[in-house]
């Protein structure tokens, strides 16, 4: 039973991921579609960050928010992504002490 669930989950996850690999060569996109697709990563990042970041500590949305602010500041000063991640983890860790 669980095996059937895993196979089903795998299929419905794999198919949407792989279809674009097959169709993209057959399509010539208009200029605005290319611009749209190039903007997708930034939109995806926005949608993935917020409001999800508020749920890092389930009942204390402010802590996630402050961790995010710490990450923005560190990234703004040009720190490597690894250091941004570590800085944000430390911020949240200290705030939950």
């Amino acid at each position: 039973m669980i095996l059937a669930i895993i196979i089903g989950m795998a299929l419905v996850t794999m198919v949407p991921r792989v279809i674009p690999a097959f169709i993209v060569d057959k399509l010539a996109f208009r200029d605005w579609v290319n611009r749209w697709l190039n903007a997708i990563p930034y939109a995806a990042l926005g949608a993935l960050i917020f409001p999800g970041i508020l749920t890092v500590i389930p009942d204390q949305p402010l802590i996630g928010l402050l961790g995010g602010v710490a990450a923005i500041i560190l990234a703004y000063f040009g720190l490597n992504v690894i250091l941004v991640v570590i800085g944000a983890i430390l911020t949240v860790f200290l705030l939950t002490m």
Partner: protein
Amino acid sequence: MDTDALEKQKSSPALYMVRKGIAVGFPIMLGYLPIAITYGVLAKQAGMTLTELTLMSVMVFAGASQFMGANMIAVGAGALEIIVATFVLNFRHFVMSLSFMNRLRNLGLRWKAPLSLGLTDETFAVSSLHTQEAKMEKNGYFYAALILTAYLSWIVGSFLGGVLGEVIPEKLSQSMGIALYAMFIGLLTPSVKKEWRVGFVAVIAMLINVVFSQFMSEGWAIVFGTVLGGLSGVFLLKEDAS
């Protein structure tokens, strides 16, 4: 100096791109390990065997849906219900894959198809914001190494969680929940610094996500946030942002 130059000559461009991919994929590993371990612990508690929970990571490779799947198995939800919910939650990868594959037009299908299977929120975000590599020779090796770094850490982490249980103290693993968000911010911020309109696109996507999640599932809200937020980029990012 001499040996350095010699070394650079000896190592092939493919190997160079593999190294680069692993280095760029490292922050994903840092974010995935604690989450994968937590998933392993949860899946074990949900009554899955070690083989089953590891197999799910191998075959599905999508964090949020695996947490949801394990939770639903624990409460005895039906298979169809779980599979439909997974489809809804992961459909955003279709949009992301379309964007990613459009960037990889120069690669053959034998590269594109396997790379597309390794697409997650995180591998997509990191790949897409490293635009120089897309134009370099042997770029397939870069993406493959990046994705495999993420994939293997996800599988290993899940397995460890299933075997060892809570190896990371709860307080620390809870704090590490910020890791992937911080990585996303760490990727987005430099782009916003270069071109503030990029930040505008991201904020529009955030707002759409917030509004839509009031009356639809999280999965669809992220899809709409991404698609409509990206559409705002058609008007805002007249010149190629990359």
